[in-house]
């Protein structure tokens, strides 16, 4: 009976390891704190109506940023724990983690950083910026968007579930290679958590991708032909096309893995006629394009930033777009270079090696268009541009090592070594993460109406660069010394320990950089009067997102602009302001259906993880019911009349005037430094203590 209701869940599965309990306690404490604050300030209703059920892509974008930012810290703690173990565990010492626990940590680190940090930020940026760039008021399907976001959140919770309900996480590496992740070698629930965390968020990605393809193809402002689209929109379109091509493959592969583990099927098992090599192929057919799904929007961001900060249109727009098209097409056909060492024939290896070289061609073209864009420009070096320049150096290091790895015989000596790990971290941190930071610092004024504190932003940038070099240059060397990835222990005579320690120190420098970025955002809000962007166009922008106010009204544009050229907003600026003609605007209504479906999807996963079959079945029915009810709801929109828009605009203009006064009054001040921030914090704390301010909270 107990087994029927609780499946395999029992008291023994609860967390008992000291680090697990630490994780559990901190997560529970954070949730309780959030609940307390919301209850005390009576914000539950506001949270539900204004945020959680919102279908506004701008609000969903911000929620993506918050979740992804939080996960970046979580994955960063994992990274430091990995390096700490490797710094300590040499010779007779075995460090502070068991092998199994260590393996769970690097698996979680990989999954969290790729799925829940990089994907979260990229989807956040696409959500916020693409509709603005194409002059749309909303997405093709606002409901799919909220559903996609909440499925992503479901995945995030699932990946952290073992902290609360115990068990373990997968100890298999981020792609859960077979047959290691089969039931025979991994009988625990770790791989099941892995399956359902990726499955739920992956389906969300597929839905999101369909939505954005439809939006970009069908909802552009009048006059904006495909060849007039901004480059970030192009990058996002290619990225989403790739996502639609490969994420269903992930979904299918995960289902087959689930059948193997749950029903004892033999798709990927070593025995019973299964084929683990098939799994390796399938997972990389998705896994390789996945990193390019992250990279293409980042390429788009860099193109926008280089163009804006050089005050020139992008050089050879067509080549740039075709470059991105080439990268995304070729990225679908290089997956085998992840396992040259599995024993394929020389012809097969050579084919995939050559395609890997070929993918460098369109990438090089992108670099050349950026160089030509800067040529005879008038270049400003605000933080977005700094992140671009940092990207150039680090991504190139990753690219060079990647091309060395493209030679199969060279790969035989470097595969699975820390050289490989350093290679893809160069590309993912230098390319994707710096692209995200570049994009966030570029669009932060648009999103919040505040220009970011430049001073602390620069400090953070240098900490990231120095920390990166300290961490990953030794990692390349360790790989050459024969250190493989994922080792929880090694021998003293190898002489590897000093390099692991330098890597750990580099990790701490990066952590300081990340902390400074949080300080940067806080300092920006402290000086918000001074840093307000009252124009909507802080960088002398060229594309449509700068044509509307910062932050934009929930309907994005008061008047949908008519487009005739590529740098659409530049043209609007040249023409000068025009008297707006207000019109009725159709606005989608908020809906909780996305949350309900995701909650049920989460319970399906949770039920299958712990073999609680009734829960899974009931939840599947729940999903269907909510979906049907939602599908029959025909009142999903309301109309904002022209008169209402006019009033809203008047309010906005009045507010902007006040802001402008404030910002003029503080124009002589400077951006706060870290030291100023510390002093401010100290004075604030003192003020709270002395005047017992908490009583009024």
């Amino acid at each position, binding site marked *: 009976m107990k087994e029927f209701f609780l499946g395999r869940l029992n008291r023994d599965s609860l967390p008992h390891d000291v680090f697990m309990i630490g994780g559990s306690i901190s997560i529970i404490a954070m949730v309780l704190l959030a609940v307390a604050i919301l209850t005390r300030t009576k914000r539950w209703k506001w949270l539900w109506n204004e945020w959680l059920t919102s279908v506004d892509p701008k609000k969903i974008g911000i929620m993506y940023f918050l979740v992804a930012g939080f996960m970046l810290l979580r994955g960063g703690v994992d990274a430091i724990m990995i390096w700490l173990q490797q710094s300590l565990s040499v010779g007779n010492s075995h460090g502070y983690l068991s092998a199994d626990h260590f393996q769970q940590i690097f698996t979680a680190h990989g999954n969290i950083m790729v799925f829940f940090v990089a994907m979260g930020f990229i989807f956040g940026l696409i959500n916020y910026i693409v509709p603005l760039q194409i002059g749309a008021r909303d997405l093709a399907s606002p409901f799919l968007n909220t559903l996609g976001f909440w499925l992503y959140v479901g995945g995030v919770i699932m990946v952290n579930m073992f902290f609360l309900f115990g068990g373990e996480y997968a100890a*298999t590496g981020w792609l859960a290679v077979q047959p290691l992740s089969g039931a025979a070698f991994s009988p625990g629930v770790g791989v099941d958590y892995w399956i359902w965390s990726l499955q739920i968020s992956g389906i969300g990605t597929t839905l999101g991708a369909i939505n954005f393809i439809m939006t970009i193809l069908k909802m552009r402002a009048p006059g904006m032909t495909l060849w007039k689209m901004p480059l970030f929109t192009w990058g996002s379109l290619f990225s989403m096309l790739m996502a639609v091509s490969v994420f269903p493959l992930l979904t299918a592969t995960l289902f087959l893995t689930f059948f193997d583990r749950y029903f004892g099927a*033999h798709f990927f098992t070593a025995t019973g006629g299964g084929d683990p090599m098939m799994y390796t192929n399938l997972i990389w057919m998705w896994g390789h394009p996945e990193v390019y799904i992250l990279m293409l929007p980042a390429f788009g961001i860099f193109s926008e930033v280089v163009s804006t900060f050089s005050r020139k249109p992008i050089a050879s727009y067509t080549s740039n777009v075709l470059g991105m098209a080439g990268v995304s097409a070729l990225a679908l056909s290089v997956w085998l270079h992840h396992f040259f*060492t599995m024993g394929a024939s*020389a012809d097969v290896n050579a084919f995939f090696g050559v395609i890997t070289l070929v993918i460098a061609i369109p990438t090089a073209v992108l670099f050349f268009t950026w*160089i030509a864009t800067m040529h005879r420009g008038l270049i400003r070096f605000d933080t977005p541009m700094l992140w671009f320049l940092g990207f150039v150096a680090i991504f190139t290091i990753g690219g060079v090592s990647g091309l060395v790895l493209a030679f199969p015989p060279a790969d035989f000596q470097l595969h699975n070594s820390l*050289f490989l790990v350093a290679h893809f971290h160069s590309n993912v941190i230098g390319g994707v993460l710096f692209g995200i930071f570049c994009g966030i610092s570029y669009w932060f004024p648009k999103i919040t109406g505040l220009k970011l504190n430049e001073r602390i932003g*620069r400090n953070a940038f240098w900490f990231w660069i120095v920390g990166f070099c300290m961490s990953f240059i030794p990692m390349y060397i360790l790989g050459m010394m024969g250190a493989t990835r994922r080792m929880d222990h090694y021998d003293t005579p190898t002489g590897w320990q000093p390099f692991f320690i330098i890597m750990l120190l580099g990790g701490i420098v990066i952590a300081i950089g990340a902390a400074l970025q949080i300080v940067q955002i806080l300092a920006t809000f402290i000086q918000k009067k001074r840093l307000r962007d009252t124009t909507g166009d802080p960088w002398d922008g060229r594309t449509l997102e700068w044509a509307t106010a910062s932050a934009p009204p929930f309907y994005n544009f008061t008047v949908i602009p008519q487009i005739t050229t590529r740098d659409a907003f530049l043209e609007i600026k040249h023409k000068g302001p025009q008297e707006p003609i207000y019109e009725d605007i159709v606005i989608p209504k908020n809906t909780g259906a996305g949350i309900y479906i995701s909650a049920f999807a989460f319970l399906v996963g949770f039920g299958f993880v712990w073999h609680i079959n009734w829960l899974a079945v009931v939840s599947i029915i729940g999903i269907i019911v909510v979906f049907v009810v939602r599908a029959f709801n025909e009142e999903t929109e309301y109309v904002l009349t022209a008169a209402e828009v006019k009033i809203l605009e008047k309010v906005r203009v009045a507010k902007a005037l006040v802001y402008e006064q404030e910002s003029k009054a503080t124009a002589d001040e400077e951006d706060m430094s870290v030291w100023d921030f510390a002093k401010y914090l100290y004075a604030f704390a003192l003020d709270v203590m002395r005047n017992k301010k908490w009583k009024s909270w």
Partner: protein
Amino acid sequence: MKTKNKQKLSLAKTLLIMSGAFTAFGIGIAVLLRGKNIAVLNSKGLIASEQRSLIIFAAVMVLSIAVPTVVILYFMAWKYRESSHTSTYHPEENHGKGFNLFIWTLPTAFMLFLALILVPVTHKLQPNKAIAAGVQPITIQVMALRWKWLFIYPDQRIATVNYVQIPKGVPVVFDLTADEAPMSSFWVPNLGGQLYAMTGHINRLNLVADELGDYQGRSAEINGAGFSGMKFTAKVRSEADFQSWVKDTQRSPDILDKAAYEDLVKPSKDNQATSYSAVDNTLYAKAVMKYMGSHGSAMTEHEGSH
């Protein structure tokens, strides 16, 4: 968006600090590397040295185009910076057909050149290709078990665990497979690169050692809790020493029959190096065949466990 930073560093100062820091870092790394085995570059065999040459060649080639590109990009950023001068600013600059032709053909030509090297070298260094040395190669059957390496010398009827003795200058044919273990990867960086050991498959890796010595090998592919301890020593000895070692080992009291093998197959971590005599030469083939049969014959005890 000018921020009035009081202590804005000049470019010269920034470059000076950066190059100073890099030099110091480089010297520190060099000191730490003194006397250490940079295995991939420190090749002790024909295959490893060919792979090393390829790695160095590829890196130099790619750097020869990547470094100028990055330098030009940074030079552009510096040359056309806002604070320098405005007379060169040319926002309407038009990049014509010639420019487009150039940016596509240059990398295409370069990658074509690299591809022309990649294809033959991939065939030349294909792991299962026999090494021509004029000497009869020695065959060693390698089995990845949880979590140890078993080396069977079928012709000598001896076996070793977690170390492998090979004669200098004699090509070695490693026939890799696995039993009751997830995919593992066989790697001795000083002797040459890596190939997967998988159940139901025989992956053939040809290596040869040119210098006497002890070289570390390990599983490079994650395969469970004992992964880090799954390492072995490749001992390269002279032909004469090798032969006497074989004779000694053939007298070893430990024999590798079915029972001893079944003990070995059980999961265990950090195994000591051991050797066996009187090896049952059907063990290897049986272990491979076990996974190749159709559904019924390939059943193992794991089947019932989930």
